[in-house]
C-alpha cells in the first residue's frame, strides 16, 4: 500500500498595530463604533489619493528581518482589482511581483527534530472592511469600513510543512516572533492573525506537487491543525478510491469540525493586477535596513538560549517561558529580585499559566505582579508560610492583586511554629490513633504521613510541617 505524506504551505495575514491606517491617517483601532474611523480616502471617495504610512514599511522590514528574509532593494504596490462591498476602491493595494521581503525561514522544533520552514515572501497590503449579515432572513448585509485600509503583512511559506502539528508549531513560533517585534498583537479571535492553508498529498519519497486544496476561515491554531488533519483524511480517501483531487477552496466550520467546498478553480477571480500609478516605488538602501536590524529586539530563540545559559533552566522551561514576550519579561522581572530561577520558573509555568488559562487572561491583564510573587517566595523561605499555604496565597493574590503579606494576615494563614502548641496537638493525634502508631512501628512508613496529615488538618494547613515531623518522630 502507498504511504502518503502531506505537503502544506501556509499564508498568514497579520494586522499591524500601527497608530494609523496604511494609506490614510485614520486611527487603526479595534472595536470602535462602526464607520467611525473612516475618511474620504479609506471610503474611496472620488479624487482621493493614498500616501504610504512609514510605519507599515518599517514593521514589514522588521518582520522580514526576524524571519531571516532578504529585504528587497526595490518594491512597489499593485492594485488587485475585484468587487466586494468591504473593498471600497474595488481594488486592494497589495504587492504582486516585487514584494518587500523574500527567501526567509523559520525553524520549528518537533519532538523529533528541528524543521526549517522556508518563507517564500512577506508583502505589504491593506485590509478590507467587515461585513455583518442581517439577522435571520434579513435581505441585507451591513458594511463597516473601520478595518478597511488597516495595514497587513502577508507571510507565505514554501510548501515545506509535512504535518498538521508542524503547521501549528510554525504558527505558534511565528506568533511569538511577531509579538516580540511588537508589530502586532496576533489575536486570532479578533482577526489580527489569520491563516489560510494549501495542502496536497504525495507518496512518501517523491517530490511531486499534486493538485492542492486551499482551506480558509480557520479561527484558531487548533482549528488549523484539525482542518489539516481532516483534509489529509479526505484526500487520502479520494486517492485510495482512485478519485482525482479537484483544485478548490474549502471553508472550515469550527462547530462541525469539517470543511466544505467554497469554490473551484474555474470560478477563480481575474484580479487584473497592475502597478498603482497613484503611489511611487520604494528603493531601500542597506543603511536603512541595517539601522532597522540594529533596533530589533531579542527574539524567542535567542532568549530561550539565554534563559538556559544564564538561569540554568531546562530547555522545556526556557521554551515555555519565552513562548511569549510578556511571559518572558514577567519571569525576568521576578528573577532580578530572587535568587532561585528554577523555583520562579515552577511557579510561573505551573500556577501562573494555569490561572491565566482558567480565566482566559493575558499576562498583561494579571493583577499579580512579579514583586508580589517574589515577596511570597521570600515568605516561604522565611518559614512564614508553607508550600501548601503558598498555593492558597498565590490564588488569592491572583484574584485580588493584594500583596502576599497582606493576604497571609487577612486570611490568618501564618504558619504555626510554636513548639509547645504543636506538641499538644501531636500528643492528641497520637493518642487518638494508636493503631496507626502501631503500624508505623511495624515498619509502615506511610503511617507517618497520615499522622502529619492529621495535624495539618487540625491547623488547616498552617502547621510548620518540618516541626510536626520532628515532634512526631520524637514521640513514636
Amino acid at each position, binding site marked *: 500500500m502507498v504511504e502518503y505524506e502531506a505537503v502544506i504551505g501556509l499564508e498568514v495575514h497579520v494586522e499591524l498595530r*500601527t*497608530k*494609523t491606517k496604511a494609506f*490614510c*491617517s*485614520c*486611527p487603526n483601532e479595534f472595536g470602535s*463604533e*462602526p*464607520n*467611525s*474611523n*473612516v*475618511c*474620504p480616502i479609506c*471610503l474611496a471617495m472620488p479624487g482621493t489619493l493614498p*500616501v*504610504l*504610512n*512609514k*510605519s507599515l*514599511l518599517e514593521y514589514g522590514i522588521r518582520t522580514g528581518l526576524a524571519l531571516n528574509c532578504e529585504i528587497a532593494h526595490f518594491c*512597489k504596490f499593485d492594485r488587485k482589482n475585484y*468587487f466586494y*462591498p468591504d473593498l471600497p476602491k474595488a481594488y486592494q493595494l497589495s504587492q504582486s511581483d516585487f514584494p518587500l521581503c523574500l527567501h526567509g525561514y523559520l525553524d520549528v522544533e518537533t519532538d523529533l527534530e528541528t524543521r526549517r520552514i522556508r518563507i517564500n515572501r512577506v508583502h505589504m497590503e491593506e485590509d478590507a472592511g467587515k*461585513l*455583518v*449579515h*442581517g439577522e435571520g432572513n*434579513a*435581505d*441585507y*448585509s*451591513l*458594511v*463597516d*469600513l473601520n478595518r478597511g485600509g488597516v495595514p497587513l503583512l502577508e507571510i507565505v511559506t514554501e510548501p515545506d510543512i509535512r504535518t498538521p502539528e508542524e503547521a501549528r508549531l510554525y504558527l505558534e513560533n511565528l506568533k511569538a516572533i511577531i509579538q516580540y517585534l511588537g508589530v502586532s498583537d496576533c489575536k486570532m479571535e479578533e482577526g489580527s492573525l489569520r491563516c489560510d492553508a494549501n495542502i496536497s498529498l504525495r507518496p512518501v519519497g517523491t517530490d511531486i506537487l499534486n493538485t492542492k486544496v486551499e482551506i480558509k476561515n480557520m479561527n484558531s491554531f487548533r482549528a488549523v491543525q484539525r482542518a489539516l488533519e481532516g483534509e489529509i483524511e479526505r484526500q487520502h480517501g479520494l486517492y485510495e478510491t482512485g478519485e482525482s483531487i479537484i483544485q478548490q477552496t474549502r471553508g472550515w466550520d469550527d462547530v462541525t469540525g469539517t470543511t466544505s467546498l467554497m469554490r473551484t478553480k474555474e470560478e477563480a477571480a*481575474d484580479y*487584473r493586477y497592475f*502597478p498603482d*500609478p497613484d*503611489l*511611487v*516605488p*520604494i*528603493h531601500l538602501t542597506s543603511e536603512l535596513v541595517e539601522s532597522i536590524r540594529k533596533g530589533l529586539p531579542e527574539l524567542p530563540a535567542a532568549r530561550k538560549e539565554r534563559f538556559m545559559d544564564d538561569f540554568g533552566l531546562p530547555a522545556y522551561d526556557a521554551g515555555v517561558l519565552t513562548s511569549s514576550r510578556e511571559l518572558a519579561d514577567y519571569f525576568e522581572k521576578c528573577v532580578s529580585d530572587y535568587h532561585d530561577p528554577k523555583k520562579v520558573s515552577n511557579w510561573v509555568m505551573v500556577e501562573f499559566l494555569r490561572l491565566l488559562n482558567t480565566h482566559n487572561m493575558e499576562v498583561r491583564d494579571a493583577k499579580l505582579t512579579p514583586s508580589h510573587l517574589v515577596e511570597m517566595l521570600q515568605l516561604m523561605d522565611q518559614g512564614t508560610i508553607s508550600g501548601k499555604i503558598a498555593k492558597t496565597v498565590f490564588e488569592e493574590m491572583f484574584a485580588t492583586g493584594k500583596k502576599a503579606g497582606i493576604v497571609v494576615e487577612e486570611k490568618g494563614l501564618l504558619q504555626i511554629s510554636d513548639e509547645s502548641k504543636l506538641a499538644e496537638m501531636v500528643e492528641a493525634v497520637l493518642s487518638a490513633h494508636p493503631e496507626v502508631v502501631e503500624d508505623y512501628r511495624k515498619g509502615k512508613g506511610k503511617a507517618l504521613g497520615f499522622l502529619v496529615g492529621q495535624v495539618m488538618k487540625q491547623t488547616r494547613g498552617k502547621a510548620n510541617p518540618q516541626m510536626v515531623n520532628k515532634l512526631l518522630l520524637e514521640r513514636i
Partner: protein
Amino acid sequence: MKLTREEIEQVAELAHIALGEDEIIELHNQFNDFIQFVETINDINTDDVEPTYYLLPLKNVWRPDQHHQPLAPDEVFHNTHEHDGGFFKVPRIL
C-alpha cells in the same frame, strides 16, 4: 484578436456593468474596430525596451504615522443611498 459577443459579455461581467441588448450589439462592433486599431502598436519593435511603470523618478514617498480626525457620521453617510445604524447597507451576501 476579435472578440465574440460572449467575450464582450464576459468583460462586462468582470467590469460589473449591466448592458442592454442594443448596447451589446453596438459595443461588439466598436470593440473589434478599436482593438484592431490599438493592435497597430504591435508594429513597433519593443525588444529590449523596459516598460515605464512610473513617469517621474520619484521614490520613497511616505507620511509619519500620526492620525487625523476621521469624518463625522453625517458626512460619512451624506451621499449614501442606503445605510442603517452606522453601517452601509447592501443586498444580502450569501
